[in-house]
């Protein structure tokens, strides 16, 4: 019990960030038109590729002779980058198609907002 309380106390900012982020995520997504579900899923998919930073840290802090850590870290960096780059490029490609026919949408979407 005390460990948990201490942990919360020591990481109070983290807890705030987590809880606020949860509400933020819900708030941001809840009004999205179903048209955008696929690009949005793909975009969110690219964002969790931020895990690649963890992979970089693993590699960057591994001792030079720790070949297991370096090998695994290397794979982690590759697949993490794949997630980030692939995710953003695919999302961009999907959204590029919307752009051509955007004009009628711009008017339609903007009116209720303003």
């Amino acid at each position, binding site marked *: 019990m005390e460990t948990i309380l201490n942990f919360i106390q020591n990481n109070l900012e983290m807890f705030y960030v987590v809880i606020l982020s949860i509400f933020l995520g*819900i708030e941001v997504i809840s009004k999205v038109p179903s048209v955008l579900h696929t690009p949005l*899923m793909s975009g*969110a998919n690219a964002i*969790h590729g*931020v895990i690649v*930073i963890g992979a970089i840290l*693993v*590699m960057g802090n591994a001792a030079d002779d720790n070949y297991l850590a370096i090998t695994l870290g290397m794979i982690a960096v590759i697949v*993490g980058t794949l997630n980030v780059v692939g995710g953003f490029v*695919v999302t961009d490609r999907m959204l590029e198609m919307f752009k051509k026919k955007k004009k009628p949408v711009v008017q339609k979407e903007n009116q209720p907002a303003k």
Partner: protein
Amino acid sequence: METNILSVCYLVGSVSFIVGLKMLAHPDTARKGNLVSAAGMLIAIVATLILSQSAGKHLHNYGYIATGLVVGGVIGTIAARKVKMTAMPEMVSIFNGMGGLCAALISVVEFGRLTEGYPVLHLLIIVAGLFIGSVSFAGSMIAYAKLSGKMKDVTFAGQHIFNFVILVAVLVLGGLLVGGCFATPALIFYIVVALSFLYGVMFVLPIGGADMPVVISLLNSCTGVAAACAGFLYNNPVMLTGGILVGSAGAILTVLMCKAMNRSLKNVLIGSFGKSKVASAPGKQGAYKEVSASDAAMILAYAHKIIIVPGYGLAVAQAQHTCHELEKLLIDRGADVKYAIHPVAGRMPGHMNVLLAEADVSYDLLLEIDPSNEQFPTTDVVLILGANDVVNPSAENDPTSSIYGMKVLEVWKAKMVIVNKRSMRPGYAGIENPLFSEPNTSMLFGDAKEVLQQLITEIKTL
């Protein structure tokens, strides 16, 4: 100083994710939103490379890191550029799996680095990241195999119990491991790794193809949580916010998708399509009548109000451009032409909109499900192109059907329905469609693209 700059960069990164996601949720800012998040990601990664320090030292092994970044970046770009629009769901699933694998690998390496006297909660986060990441990776790979048709649904007796036992075993072993109850934690750790992978596979295996978008969205959310675990581990705010944001956004998106299909998440995960398929499949297909392309062209050419219902068959045939051509031709002849888009038309919510947008179809011609259903009773002809389950009346009137309760397009209320399919084979959910034997339904067999081309040629000669 350098650490301060790093913190600012992470702050910029986190904010750009939030702003980017917000912009992605609106059609007119979506593309920019994606670029904003990408820019934030770039800043965060570059800042980590240059500025990150641990115990007063900069990162090392730059050569390996750079190689990894380049290899991943090149493969990712090529794969994302080459993939066909119809194969998009598979691609998203693969990229998601890669993120999960990354999280799992980080946990494995971090576990190897643990020394005596580590905090228990540190280990808890490592094990949690490992479990979630592995499930997400293994599950995404199975989802990919299913979506690309490389694998069929697998169900066997007692599957749910088996899965439940694995899940409990993972959680118990993981819990005991964190509690420090074993003399050889490494061995148990690797058993947990193996069981997590197994659970990921077994969890997706029985779920039917039609429910796959929901599963991918759920796994997407899971990978987000795994990224957040790693953020906790390294006390890294950008990973934490990014991960949690995707975790919660993905969860909401999953619920929205379930709502669009009128299925509860519990039903998707536990009551798999596979079982009821056997019950409703045999002997239901009644008589149907066929119509030739020239007759269909005649009907379309003299109809006043036409609604096109595009489905997966259209996507497979890459016929969206031809379809747009037909629509223009009919509009030029004075007909009122609209598209009725079911939320899960194609294979993911919004997938069909992407495909039609690719073909330059105007946005205001696309109707969502409720406005479409209001329009059908006054519609002369409904042209169904390769859609099946989303126009199945069983969903409304046959409680034994596996899709009962799903919201469908009520095309049968129109005066006439022309269904283009390649054959009488059942659709994605594997069930028969009584619509095809309705008296006002005619079947027009053939590949969507060829049929559309025939229709265009015929209408032009009229």
